[in-house]
């Protein structure tokens, strides 16, 4: 049986006496496109930050491809890439330098090979010809694509994305969704994304978990299209049908 890409066991997230979510359990199979969704403030981004090891859990364990998160952070280069909501490109570096940075840090490739790989990553996200542009010189959608190119630099098998289509026009958003599908279907990259853009969820999400602030954890899981059509949970129905809360 293939090792799941991510296993989350009894995860509790909180700070001090405050508990955001408790005893959360789920698995993400390798090769999946997995969506973490829920209303504002339910802890989607916090969960993502725990999955990528930037915040320690209050309790519980997270395993990525069979290895515990603290071990991954302490040992070698992470086998996953991360795209932050703003793109988080380094403003003083060109796109090529941004994408080359992890290759220079973690590989022993000679500079011409690093350049070739970085150019190919930018080409993959349709940014060929923009290698020498600074982040300030490109649009928001291009920044997000460049951030994906940087996240892909080290050939990760797992890609985390925080609100990838937030703030993008519909065309750019759909192009980004297509790109994520290509990465998943052609390159076999497991994709974990946090979003509440319904169109993206239905287009690329094979599986999802829905978080809820009041329940302090997961209130629904499964295929997002099935949840939309069959769930009887009022919170889930409100979310997928864009209905306001009852007063």
């Amino acid at each position, binding site marked *: 049986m293939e090792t799941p890409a991510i296993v989350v066991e009894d995860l509790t997230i909180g700070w001090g006496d405050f508990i955001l979510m408790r005893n959360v359990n789920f698995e993400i199979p390798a090769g999946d496109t997995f969506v973490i969704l829920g209303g504002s403030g339910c802890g989607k981004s916090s969960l993502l930050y725990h999955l990528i090891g930037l915040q320690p859990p209050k309790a519980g364990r997270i395993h990525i491809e069979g290895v515990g998160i603290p071990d991954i952070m302490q040992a070698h280069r992470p086998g996953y890439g991360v795209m932050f909501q703003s793109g988080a490109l*380094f*403003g003083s570096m060109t796109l090529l330098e941004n994408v080359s940075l992890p290759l220079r840090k973690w590989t022993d490739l000679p500079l011409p090979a690093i350049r070739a790989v970085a150019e190919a990553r930018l080409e993959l996200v349709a940014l060929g*010809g923009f290698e020498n542009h600074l982040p300030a010189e490109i649009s928001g959608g291009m920044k997000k694509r460049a951030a994906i190119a940087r996240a892909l630099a080290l050939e990760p098998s797992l890609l985390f994305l925080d609100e990838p289509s937030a703030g993008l026009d519909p065309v750019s958003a759909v192009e980004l969704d297509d790109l994520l599908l290509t990465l998943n279907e052609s390159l076999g990259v497991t994709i974990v994304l946090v979003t509440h853009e319904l169109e993206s969820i239905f287009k690329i999400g094979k599986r999802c978990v829905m978080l809820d602030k009041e329940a302090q954890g997961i209130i629904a899981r499964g295929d997002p299209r099935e949840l939309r059509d069959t769930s009887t949970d009022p919170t889930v129905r409100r979310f997928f049908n864009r209905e306001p809360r009852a007063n």
Partner: protein
Amino acid sequence: MNPTDPSRAITIVADAGGAELRVSGRVTLAAGREFWRLLQAHLEDPHRDYRVDLTEVETLDGACAAMLLELKSEVVGAGGSVEFSGASPDVGRLLGVYTPRDEVAPKPPPQRAGIFHQLGTATVQAFTRVGDVFAFIGDFCVSLGHAIRSPRSVNWADVGHLMERAGADGVPIVVLINFLVGVILAYLAAGEFAKYGADIFVANLVGIGMARELGPLMTAIIVCGRSGAAFAAELGTMKVSEEIDALRTLGQDPVRFLVLPRMLALILMVPILTLLGDIVGCVGGLLIAMGELDLTSTAYLNQLQGAVGLWDVGGGLIKSVVFAIAITAISCQRGLATRGGAAGVGSSTTSAVVTILFALVALDTVFSILFAALGI
């Protein structure tokens, strides 16, 4: 995956003529350096026509596909050709994904400017910045006029908090630095004055030196490092995160809303810090006079009282007000002129601190000349 496993290592075998290449093994980023070296060695003549057999490639990842396609493009660019054959469906799909499509004309890489170009640019920028500061002072005067006519439009709520940050929070470092400056001055004077039996005049040097020059200047330098840098960074960050634009759309004048409270806070606090600095500097001198020159505290304080006049202290305080205006004007102007992202904020902060330090010394020189001309 173990790239050193001989059964999986990358090999490239060429036929006798060198035009038929057979790649085998696990071709992944972990062994990317070796793959790049082997490829370069076998595709050394870019004018030839090569056939690359990929039948025995166990795995190919994106990074190595990119390298393969890069060297193919070099060969094709030089007039040769590279033809791939025998690729498995996975390898073929990967090569397809990474094959370059039509692209926009690339922007040339940034050129490093020559020394004369840099010198010329820096000179023009220096004059432009001086002009910007004066233009900003003009804007500030206009905003001040509006603020006087409509005091409710000023963000008074921030003034107290800014006074605390710029004034009260800076007391420990101002006290420490000025105390040490007083000690240094006293040591300097003690050695020389003792030779002429003029020990008591240590009080004159320390008192007048602190009140007229070093108290205001050292305090202003500390305020520049603490508050000037903070103002530039804070306003710069607000500029790059569009908060300044948001203020404008809300009908708020950024100068009146952000700069005026800072200016008021520094105008009120820098003279107080300067006075405090003058006093602790004299205390530092007193300790050295008592310890090194065996002067009594009464003798030192009597001499200090006679030597330091009202204009010595007053002149220093007038300077401190002007220094406060210069620190706020330059730091806020630099902050509001920030462009770009994090690098722009860093650049503005550095520029603000350097310009303020230069302005403080230049203003101090002007004051020295002016006071001398007025006989103060």
